[in-house]
């Protein structure tokens, strides 16, 4: 695998998105910092409710408002803050330069129009082409995403396609305008593994061919390991660790990343190697204070982690961790209490290479 090139395409600083609901304020995203380089695939991984989809919606400026609101932060695309753009400027960017594949393909395809019409419409919306050209482009892009006899199937309705094919149509629509950045929210989660493999391969191939960057949202560490150059691990509205996947899978620095990797079956691992993260995912209306992971953390520093939010620490360039084990405050705490905090290594058998 090649090293990710260094040109930055997207940079998110201190993003904060809340939902003001009747039950209370859902603090879905507290502070997110993400960097996406040109033509790399960044994995965004985390458990259900950790804020992955809301992050995606925030980047595109399509958080449902009300109840949602982006309160703080910058979303820099080519250095330009998308949050400062007008609605019409933003519409031009969406679909043209940044495209998204939504989590549920069935709800995002219109059942009463043919697949071809829907792809053509997406093309016409963003490019100055005639209906006929758009149709030809649609057929071309459908065969590109591996739909057999695309010239016939272009006139089919979504219900005539299988789940995997509908997902391909979604990808075809997203790719129809050669975006520079594709945000794919769980593009393969509801599909069978044999179909998932095809969809992921398709994404990989297009990203390579068109130099497209991808933010791949998933909760499957296996998908991350196969697809991504770098990964950002989310927990309850924060990125707790981000970096090169080779490093993170081999020696995670954050206790949650360690827990997540220990909880999944890895090749060559034994039953006994499966570890658990105790407790459950927090309620984001009333989340735990400071480090939101502290009630579940085996490394918790009493008096520190629940009162002071750890700063982001750069372990090495491109590898960031938000945890007191690596902060100055944490080191002082360990000295003061005469206790050591060190992340246990992954089982030897599980990782070779």
């Amino acid at each position: 695998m090649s090293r990710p090139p260094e040109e930055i395409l997207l940079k998110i600083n201190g993003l904060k998105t809340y939902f003001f609901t009747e039950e209370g304020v859902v603090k879905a995203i507290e502070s997110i910092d993400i960097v996406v380089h040109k033509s790399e695939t960044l994995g965004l991984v985390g458990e259900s409710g950790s804020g992955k989809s809301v992050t995606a919606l925030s980047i595109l400026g399509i958080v449902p408002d009300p109840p949602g609101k982006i309160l703080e932060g910058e979303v820099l695309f080519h250095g330009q803050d998308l949050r400062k753009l007008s609605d019409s400027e933003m519409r031009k960017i969406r679909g043209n330069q940044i495209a998204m594949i939504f989590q549920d393909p069935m709800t995002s395809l219109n059942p009463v129009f043919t697949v071809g019409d829907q792809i053509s419409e997406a093309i016409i919306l963003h490019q100055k082409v005639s209906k006929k050209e758009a149709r030809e482009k649609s057929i071309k892009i459908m065969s590109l995403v591996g739909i057999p006899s695309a010239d016939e199937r272009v006139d089919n309705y979504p219900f005539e396609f299988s789940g995997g094919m509908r997902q391909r149509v979604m990808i075809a629509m997203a790719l129809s305008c050669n975006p520079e950045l594709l945000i794919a929210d769980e593009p393969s989660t509801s599909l069978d593994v044999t179909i998932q493999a095809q969809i992921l391969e398709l994404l990989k191939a297009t990203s390579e061919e068109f130099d497209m960057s991808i933010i791949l949202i998933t909760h499957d560490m296996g998908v991350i390991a196969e697809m991504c150059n770098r990964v950002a691990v989310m927990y309850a509205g924060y990125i707790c660790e981000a970096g090169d996947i080779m490093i993170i899978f081999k020696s995670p620095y954050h206790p949650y990343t360690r827990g997540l990797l220990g909880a999944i079956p890895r090749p060559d691992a034994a039953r006994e190697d499966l570890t658990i993260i105790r407790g459950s995912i927090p309620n984001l209306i009333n989340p735990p204070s400071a480090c939101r992971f502290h009630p579940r953390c085996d490394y918790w520093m009493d008096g520190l982690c629940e009162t002071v939010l750890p700063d982001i620490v750069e372990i090495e360039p491109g590898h960031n961790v938000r945890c007191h084990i690596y902060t100055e405050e944490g080191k002082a705490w360990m000295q003061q209490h005469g206790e050591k905090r060190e992340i246990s290594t992954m089982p030897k058998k599980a990782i070779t290479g």
Partner: protein
Amino acid sequence: MSSESFIEKIASQQADKGLVSSRIRTKIMKEDVVLEVVNLKKFFNIPIPFETTWFMLAFVAAVVVFAFSTTIGLALMGGVIVLYFLLPNVPPFNKRPKVAHLKAVDGIDLHIRKGKIVGLVGESGCGKSTAAKTIIRLLEPTAGSVYFKGIDINRLTSVEMKEIRRHLQIVFQDPYASLNPRATAHDIIIEPFDIHGVASGDEASYKVLSLLKDVGLAPHHAYRYPHEFSGGQRQRLGIARALALEPDFIVMDEPVSNLDVSVRAAIIQLILELQNKMGLTYLFIAHDLSLVKILCDETNVMYLGKIMESGTSDEIFENMMHPYTKALISAVPIADPTKRSKKIFLTGDIPTPINPPPGCKFQTRCPLVSDICRLEEPPARWYSATHVAYCHNIEGGEENPQVYVK
């Protein structure tokens, strides 16, 4: 009478009447088999509603060529516009809707020995849940037999079945749908005690608390309703209920598929703990192959209602023979970036289980397909006494597993 002797009594009664062949009986006793499933089939009859098909035609605005007396037709032949308004219910056609067979399970064999965790894997809709329900006789099979400790359970009367049912439990795929929403956890777990008259009053309540504890729930959870639990907790509740009558055998239908990673690992640990503590035997249904690999002693791979390959998990994951197993396992994303594997991509459509093609079920997607696959059911090829694959075009193997028995 104790349950064990009840099982023995029924088993010997059935044997005396010649209902269970002596070959199967010896095999079951010799190998300590808890469950032996022989050529099980379960078909669903699906009515094909004519009127809907007709209505669809009009909707898609295809060129409708035939006009029937029952359709109100408006034909402007001069303008070449043909409009048909088809009524959703066209009398003569909906009288006897045609029936098709959906072959959800089409002849599967399973062999489950005591204390083992046996995996059943396959893609969505291949018939895993149907097989599971048929095995514990929540559905009646269309054909085939299920022997539980030597008893042919499909020959039992309802009274006898009730006694046996205690030993055959299931944790359903969707814990929410399978738990009564208006009953508390306490009521849900105590119900089997009532049905079987095992315990009552304080004794039963005490048992409920200890079961909750066994599955990692707290006493105060007893008075909560299913919707007040998280997904993982509901799954535990389903497990507690299945354990209530101390069964020998539990079917776990995708017990962790919809759960988050951290909850998932906790349920797996629970399953293993219970196996160690109570010597339980499991049929574990899943589509997460990485999990099956490390959890299950044996694995059965299913495709469109049929078993394609069975063997110990080592045999299936390290030495798979069947082209479908190979494609399936290669497609599983591996959580180790240093091991990006070469994938086998399947092309072709997945046929519907309604009137599937003759011959091998995998023919439409198989990279090795040849003419014979479209005509004849593939034969068994045995690679060890436990490892079998069904395919026309694979190398080696024996026709008969007896070759491997010394």
